[in-house]
């Protein structure tokens, strides 16, 4: 996590990958206990990954990572139950260690989220910045040139765009 927070893409990728497996097991178990289908789990995995990414600055490196990630997962699960109106859904505060004890590796698991559509709803500048940097993999400098923005504007737009994306994912499926 520390290397990932420092900007090491490979380390960060490994971290998200490992977290996603724990998250998948966690949400599958919780949803099946609530009588929900497993397909919702992958939506939640992705929503939580986005949330972990956009709030990674709130991780205190002097603390263990697991309780922090667990708190986000639990928050997203409660929020999900609330907005899908599952009245009486109880999410116990289990030991956060439980989340790492589980592992569910479904390579290439797919969610019902349509990232492209959600991305399309963002303001133009954010869209372009995210496409250049996060999808095409350009450096900030290259993206800045391509989009005709300053480098700091690219960074700000990527950051704000991902936050907006995370909000859009959390705001969807109100029914």
């Amino acid at each position, binding site marked *: 996590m520390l290397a*990932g*927070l*420092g*900007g*090491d*893409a*490979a380390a*960060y*990728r490994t971290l*998200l*990958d490992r977290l*996603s497996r724990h998250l*998948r097991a966690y949400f599958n178990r919780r949803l099946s206990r609530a009588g929900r289908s497993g397909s919702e789990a*992958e939506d939640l*995995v*992705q929503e939580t*990954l*986005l*949330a972990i*990414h956009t*709030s*990674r*600055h*709130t*991780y*205190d*490196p002097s603390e263990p990572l697991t*309780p*922090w*990630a*667990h*708190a*986000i997962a*639990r*928050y997203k699960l409660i*929020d999900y139950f609330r907005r899908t109106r599952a009245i009486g859904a109880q999410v116990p505060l289990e030991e*956060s260690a439980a989340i790492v004890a589980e592992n569910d590796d479904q*390579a*290439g*698991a*797919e*969610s019902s*989220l*349509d*990232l492209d559509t959600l991305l399309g709803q963002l303001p133009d500048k954010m869209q372009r910045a995210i496409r250049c*940097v*996060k*999808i095409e*993999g*350009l*450096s*900030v400098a290259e993206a800045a040139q391509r989009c005709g923005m300053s480098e700091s504007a690219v*960074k700000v737009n*990527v*950051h704000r765009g*991902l936050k907006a994306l*995370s*909000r859009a994912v*959390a705001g969807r499926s109100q029914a």
Partner: protein
Amino acid sequence: VKTDKLIEMLSTGVEPIDRRGPSRMLAVAAAMSVIAALGLMLLALRTRQDLVHAAAWPSLVLKVLFAGLLIVLAMTALGKVVRPGGEAKTSLAVLGLPFAAVMLLAIGALAVSPSSHWRAMVLGSQWLECLISIPLIAVVPFALITCAVRQAAPTNLARAGGLVGLAAGSMSAVGYAFHCTDDTIPFVALWYGGTIALCTLAGVKLGPRLLRW
């Protein structure tokens, strides 16, 4: 979308992050809020006329100490609560201590006074102004601190909102203290304590709506 693809996207071109960001945002918001509360008091109410006389100071110091302590406690707790899972690391009991202390002082002050003075000591001359001004001035600090908290990721929204309300109410009380000429301890306990508690309650109610992410 495949989860692999999302992870790929998130980890591409990932920027180093400023880990002291949330704390710094809160500190800046708190400083701006105190200035805003003082500024609003100056604009709308003016400072009390007898500020130059030493007799006005003991009561002012008591009010500022009471509200200032609450600001420090609320902002410290908020610094933890804005991080996911941080609510488990904070104790709310300590927030009640300043209220309990000022209540005890108030009871003591009433006990040594004849009961014919009680009414004047508790109601003062401007209790209504106090009741209205503190929550009203608190709106600006509340908005400023809410903005800072929204940059972070609290996982207990009611608690985070309550702490925002507590801090905002206390900041407002510090500002109002420079205007207020009701100097008895029972007045401070009831009307300062009460309005700050009211702001806290409003924060608890608004938190889940304003701070959701």
